């Protein structure tokens, strides 16, 4: 009996959903902290993201795991959604579009993982 060919789509939809939920819950606060409050030094202190503090965070397994999950799930969510919106703006979402979008998400995931691993524990 030939093996049943199963679709890989549910995996991408699962990552899209998980990343969409996580970014809906935390995205606004994260952008506020790293992009506005700390750079401006108000209302959070500018040394909140000082080197020793962030390094210790990224070395701890909780911080490392948090950063990896946020980056990876955000990337897969965004790329999946962009892929499925391409048709709406008149771009055919064929094999090339899939390769670029999912390849981009995979690249971000690998770069983040490599960076976090090289920071050490």
């Amino acid at each position, binding site marked *: 009996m030939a093996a049943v060919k199963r679709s890989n789509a549910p995996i991408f939809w699962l990552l899209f959903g998980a990343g*969409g939920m996580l970014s*809906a*819950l935390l995205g*606004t606060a994260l952008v506020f902290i790293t*992009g506005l409050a700390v750079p401006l030094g108000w209302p959070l202190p500018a040394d*909140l993201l000082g080197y*020793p503090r962030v390094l210790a965070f990224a070395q701890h397994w909780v911080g490392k795991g948090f950063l990896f999950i946020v980056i990876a799930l955000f*990337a897969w969510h965004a790329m999946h959604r962009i892929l499925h919106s391409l048709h709406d703006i008149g771009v055919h979402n064929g094999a090339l579009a899939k390769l670029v979008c999912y390849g981009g998400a995979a690249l971000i995931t690998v770069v983040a993982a490599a960076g976090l691993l090289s920071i050490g524990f």
Partner: protein
Amino acid sequence: MSRKAYLRPMEGWWRRDPFFVRYMVREATAVAVLVYTIVLTVGVVRLSQGEAAWNGWLQAMRSPGSLVLHAVLLVSMFVHAKSWFEIMPKTMPMIVIGGKRLAASTITRSGWAAAVVASIVLLSLAGWWRP
């Protein structure tokens, strides 16, 4: 005699209806999520390269261009969160409590409440956490 088949022009289709505009705005938030993810990924890479590299990333985050970008990203993330919970009643499995279907507005409001609580917890942890 052959004639060219008529193709309905689709240019700018989404501007025809406010519903479509909202749909496109919602889908466009994915670009903001992607941009912010790239910013974070660069940060992780710079952190792994040592203190000078990390301080360079922090310096870049303080530039006017970065602040404007993150103001746009902040609004986009908020729109994403708002719309994500607005469509959640349609994307999640139906919940039946006591023989009655859980109202869409209850699901949406629960999502917003969860996002507010998660944001407060994250901001508190960021402020209080000491290595």
